[in-house]
């Protein structure tokens, strides 16, 4: 889908997002909030898809990257916003998102390094561990409000920002994977030994996948922080990571369009299930099991990929 006019798609998507955003004051606040949630989840799922889907490195710590980005961005705006005149606020926000993203990608580098030696279940455990360590550290850091959370974050996230950045994420991930260079991600996913025999350095591709994936997770965290205006360490626990993993699997590992669709469905589904609030999560877990039994290749994948030993 990215072959022809991918850049045009990107520009068009950003333009539409910005235009719609200008009218957002007329929208129902509830639907506006949900739409922003949808876009944030698209960013998270698509960025995780680069690590888990395209490169085949099973990571269970995406919520950790998101947390670092969210807290980083929120600290930036909390300290810088009062010093800057109103017209420049969007710049501060952009800078804060960038800082959050870079902080998360530095962490991605740190997580990526052990992944050079570990594979499969071991890697899953280590990424899970990194996520939990970040949560525990945040829970004990007084600067960011410790266990009671970080309050008073300005509301800066708009439809334009989220959908615009979601478009950028989709573009960057798709363009990276579909470039000559980026075919290496898929080669590493399919067979590491064969890939290195063909002169591809698996180590490098794995670390790059972690850095890019973590960057966008950090950006999503920043958007989330300035959308909810409140951050709490418990919001970034193991369950949050699982939610994102489920989106990627539901959409089909390594299939960008499917993953986007899954992110939309899984964000909206709980809202529709509000009427069954007390059995909502039971249905959710049944959905995961049923899906793995019936369609392990993802909901929207028509031709099953050949089974790979991930």
């Amino acid at each position: 889908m990215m072959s022809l006019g991918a850049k045009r798609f990107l520009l068009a998507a950003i333009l539409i997002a910005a235009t719609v955003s200008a009218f957002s004051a007329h929208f129902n606040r509830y639907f506006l909030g949900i739409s922003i949630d949808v876009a944030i989840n698209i960013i998270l799922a698509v960025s995780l898809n680069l690590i888990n889907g395209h490169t085949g490195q099973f990571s269970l710590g995406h919520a950790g990257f998101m947390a670092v980005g969210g807290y980083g961005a929120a600290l930036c705006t909390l300290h810088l916003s009062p010093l800057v005149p109103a017209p420049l606020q969007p710049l501060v926000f952009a800078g804060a998102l960038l800082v959050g993203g870079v902080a998360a990608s530095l962490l991605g580098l740190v997580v990526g390094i052990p992944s050079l030696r570990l594979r499969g279940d071991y890697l899953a455990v280590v990424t899970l561990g990194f996520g939990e360590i970040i949560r525990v550290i945040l829970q004990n850091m007084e600067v960011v409000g410790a266990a009671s959370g970080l309050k008073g974050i300005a509301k800066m996230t708009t439809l334009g920002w989220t959908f615009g950045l979601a478009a950028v994420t989709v573009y960057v991930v798709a363009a990276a994977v579909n470039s000559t260079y980026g075919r290496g991600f898929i080669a590493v996913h399919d067979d590491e030994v064969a890939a290195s025999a063909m002169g591809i350095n698996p180590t490098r591709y794995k670390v790059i996948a972690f850095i890019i994936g973590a960057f966008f997770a950090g950006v999503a965290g920043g958007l989330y922080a300035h959308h909810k205006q409140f951050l709490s360490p418990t919001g970034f626990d193991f369950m949050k990571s699982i939610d994102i993993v489920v989106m990627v699997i539901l959409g089909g590992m390594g299939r960008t369009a499917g993953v986007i669709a899954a992110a939309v469905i899984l964000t909206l589904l709980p809202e529709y299930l509000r009427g069954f609030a007390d059995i909502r999560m039971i249905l959710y877990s049944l959905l995961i099991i049923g899906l793995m039994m019936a369609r392990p290749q993802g909901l929207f994948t028509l031709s099953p990929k050949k089974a790979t030993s991930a």
Partner: protein
Amino acid sequence: MSQLLQQTINGLALGSIYALIALGYTMVYGVLRFINFAHSDVLMLGAFAAYFLTPRVEALLGPQSIPGAILVVVASAVICAGIGMLIELLAYRPLRNRPKLTVLITAIGVSLLIEYTCQHRHVLGAETRRFPTLFPSSDFHWQGLTINSNDIVVLSVTLFLLAGLWFVVQRTKTGTAMRAVAFNHHAAALMGININRVISFTFGLGSALAAVAGILYALKAPGIEPLMGVQPGIRAFIAAVLGGIGNLPGAALGGLVLGALETFAGGIPGVSNYRDGIAFAILILILMFRPAGLLGKLQPEKV
């Protein structure tokens, strides 16, 4: 010095519970090569089985009797063995030949299903309940050390079960079949081993150990609730990886090491707040230097 000894005793008691749970993870990994996330919920179900059985057994044998306690523990272990086998039959067996990741996600799904079903107000409810005192406990004081009789029970039960497990795995026909399946599925099937029965037995054995561990954990914990298995489950899982997943002595060793280190770290002022993160930090450090765990063998990837 006595402080150090005291912490060692506490650490060993905690670590032996981790070891019991870790054995279940590692046995299942040995035969099926995936992490059974639902194991920590079987542990919780074991504690709840004991919670509901105790009043009935006490009505029969009188309160806090030793035979009663043994009966409760054995009955809970049998119930959980059944649950473990049922989970394998319904959720994992249909996926036997699928990619490992599919099974892993299913395991997470099963775990969430059990947790959320139990939290529902018509099933168990989310509130914490007080676990009954199965048998009288008292503190011993010796040279400035305080030893709770529960800790001694925990340690001796664990040692007994470890010895029993060693006997089952090394000396019985079923145990030999288990090792054969863990070594090579296809070759074991060709030798006439009923793979399904062996895997089912492995789940039953692991789940029974988890039930006992759940009861022992509940004796030390303030109360039981549907999510009580998550924290010890994660620790035990780390312990299994730490010792080298798939390796039985490794799981026992990993559990003890983790329990001891965590207790020591919890005793240092300032570090105790980070307790939840310490287990993972230890794990990451060890895996950086020994990617296959303490006792695991690194298997080179075949082309």
